[in-house]
């Protein structure tokens, strides 16, 4: 084990040296110093030779060894080229399903990446993703670590927000169907859906830089909203000039729209409160009507991810990063490629914040028109907005010291505990709200972040239920059934322009999110605060 550690350190030193040499040569070449062209090329060739062009060779399922730590923690032993062990948070019952999936191999594959700290982790809603598993969390050191677009996902800053109201179930009784239709008409949704508010080129660039702040400045929200959005709705470091025309062309007409698939706008009510103190801090009470919106960066984010995957693939080869899976392509955090991806990713993050803020505005207008009162009178206030596909710099304790590390969360939610400076002041005593949507037929949950999450998972939690049926299978299961009517009988009014989407999104297609929540709560990574039950669902 000692010699393995030595070998890993030696590889990391060699990689750093090759990177620095290539960067220095490039800098010298760029400044036109005499004789630098040959030096540049020689340095690149040296880096290239040293770079082992290895894709594949990751850990296979049969090689994995699982060690149960306790009722909710399972460790994957570090073998082969894994830099660190893996950890899966799941119940024993869940592990039976998880072991049949390829996602544990993906946890092990992520552990191969250079500079990874402590463990490659996966939350209980884990399932097979692209490179990183969905539900994957990994943090990397600045000087030796890497940035991987696969650790963020295609839908950059896919996330969810929750609004509370002063309304109760009684206030909407007998009117839910109409409310569902009103909301559906107000928020553009569905395949290629386009916003009610088209953006000019200049405006799009402003959105990419300012995020939700742009919306507030232009009358689509309030300053109070910004205080309860992760990163205050604006990721620093965005550079719109780096974003391609193709990405902008995809994004420009779509801001303020839901999209399709598993994105939704959902009216619900608080069925149960588990933590009175936290619920009170969040402004939630039993029987209260709530609104949840789930969406991301639409076509713009997908395009940015796709383009950067290509750059990162080339970068992986250039810097000699072993890729057990191509989709794990990465570049050193200090490299120009990583810096570029950070700046473009920040644009997509800001776009998604603005997207959800714009839809909130449309929803507020819809509620105001429906109930004949202002959104302010209705108390339609934002509780919180969380990302669940993101990579960012955060300060965490590493080996007893506070260190800035790059945390990747792919299908995982930030869950900062009480006292953290990044938790809004009004929530700081209880911890950050963590919003976990389930499927459209059952329930969603509000949790709170904990110190345990800070200690173990870089302040991270699960993000949802996770699919258990493929879309193809879900359509087969739904075939011949009247899904809209079935849900209506349960008191849930669904509105969608696509019967196909609703078939793909039937409740049975998803795992029971309550099981996921029980693991998070049992492991101490997030505390249960409230359960929300849907009554009106708008799908794309």
């Amino acid at each position: 084990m000692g010699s393995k550690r030595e070998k890993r350190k030696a590889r990391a030193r060699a990689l750093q040296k090759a990177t620095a040499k290539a960067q220095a040569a490039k800098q010298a070449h760029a400044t036109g110093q005499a004789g630098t062209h040959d030096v540049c090329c020689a340095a690149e060739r040296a880096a290239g030779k040293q770079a082992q062009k290895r894709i594949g060779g990751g850990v296979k399922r049969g090689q994995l060894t699982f060690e149960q730590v306790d009722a909710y923690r399972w460790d994957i032993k570090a073998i082969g080229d894994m830099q660190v062990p893996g950890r899966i948070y799941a119940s024993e019952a869940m592990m039976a399903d998880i072991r049949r999936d390829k996602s544990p191999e993906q946890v092990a594959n992520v552990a191969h990446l250079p500079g990874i700290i402590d463990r490659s982790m996966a939350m209980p809603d884990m399932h097979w993703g692209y490179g990183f598993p969905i539900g994957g969390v990994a943090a990397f050191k600045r000087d030796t670590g890497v940035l991987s677009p696969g650790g963020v996902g295609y839908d950059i800053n896919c996330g969810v927000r929750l609004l509370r109201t002063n309304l109760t179930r009684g206030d909407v009784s007998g009117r839910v169907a109409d409310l569902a239709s009103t909301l559906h008409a107000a928020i553009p949704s569905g395949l290629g859906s386009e916003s009610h508010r088209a953006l000019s080129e200049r405006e799009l660039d402003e959105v990419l830089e300012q995020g939700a702040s742009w919306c507030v400045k232009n009358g689509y929200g309030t300053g109070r909203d910004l205080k309860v959005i992760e990163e205050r709705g604006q990721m620093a470091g965005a550079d719109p000039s780096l974003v391609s025309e193709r990405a902008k062309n995809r994004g420009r007409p779509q801001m303020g729209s839901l999209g399709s698939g598993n994105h939704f706008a959902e009216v619900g009510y608080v069925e149960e409160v588990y933590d009175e103190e936290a619920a009170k801090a969040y402004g939630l009470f039993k029987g209260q009507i709530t609104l949840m919106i789930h969406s991301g960066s639409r076509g713009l984010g997908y395009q940015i991810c796709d383009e950067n995957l290509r750059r990162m693939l080339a970068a992986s080869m250039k810097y000699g990063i072993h890729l057990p899976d191509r989709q794990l392509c990465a570049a050193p955090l200090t490299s120009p490629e990583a810096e570029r991806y950070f700046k473009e990713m920040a644009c997509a993050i800001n776009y998604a914040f603005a997207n959800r803020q714009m839809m909130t505005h449309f929803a507020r207008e819809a509620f105001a028109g429906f109930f004949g009162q202002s959104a302010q009178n209705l108390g339609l206030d934002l509780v919180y907005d969380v990302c669940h596909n993101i990579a960012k710099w955060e300060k965490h304790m590493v080996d007893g010291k506070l260190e800035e590390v790059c945390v990747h969360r792919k299908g995982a939610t930030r869950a900062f505990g009480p006292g953290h400076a990044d938790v809004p002041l009004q929530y700081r005593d209880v911890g950050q709200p963590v919003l976990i949507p389930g499927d459209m037929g059952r329930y969603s949950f509000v949790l709170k972040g904990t110190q345990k999450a800070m200690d173990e998972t870089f302040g991270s939690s699960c993000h949802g239920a996770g699919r258990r049926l493929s879309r193809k299978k879900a359509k087969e299961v739904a075939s011949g059934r009247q899904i809209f009517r079935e849900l209506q009988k349960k008191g849930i009014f669904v509105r969608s322009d696509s019967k196909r989407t609703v078939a793909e999104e039937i409740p049975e297609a998803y795992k029971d999110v309550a099981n996921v929540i029980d693991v998070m709560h049992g492991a101490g990574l997030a505390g249960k605060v409230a359960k929300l039950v849907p009554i009106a669902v708008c799908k794309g």
Partner: protein
Amino acid sequence: MTPLLVHDRTCTSCVQLDHTADVALLASGPDVPRALAALVRGTVDVLTEDAPLEPTEARHVTIDAVDAADAIVALVNDVIFAAITDGFLTAELADVRFEDRGPYDMALSALLWGQPRSKHVIRDELKAATHHDFEVRHEPDGAGQTRTHIQLIIDV
């Protein structure tokens, strides 16, 4: 103008595999260009639910990529972009050429023959072709020939 058909459709196929989260396609043909043509048409078939298409115009695409796999994924993404954003549905793929320009430098050029989307509705939103589990295999077909299979997963 008649498109230069790369393949006779009867010798290629594209099927959708079961995949939990997204769309997985397995395309087959006597060689890479024809399997790729089947993959492209299979992608558009998912978008349009197998709508019949009549190629009336051509677009030339050139893709710069890291390697052949990257080029193929990029081509499918171009086809998806053309369909959803540009309003152009690809019916046939012709004149496929790979050019290996050196380490990590591959070019792929092709003609996309298709038609405007105006007469057809996109039924399924495909977001992006991915590198995950991407595979190109050459296997004997049992008749003394080799058959090329391309597996691709598309994020929905």
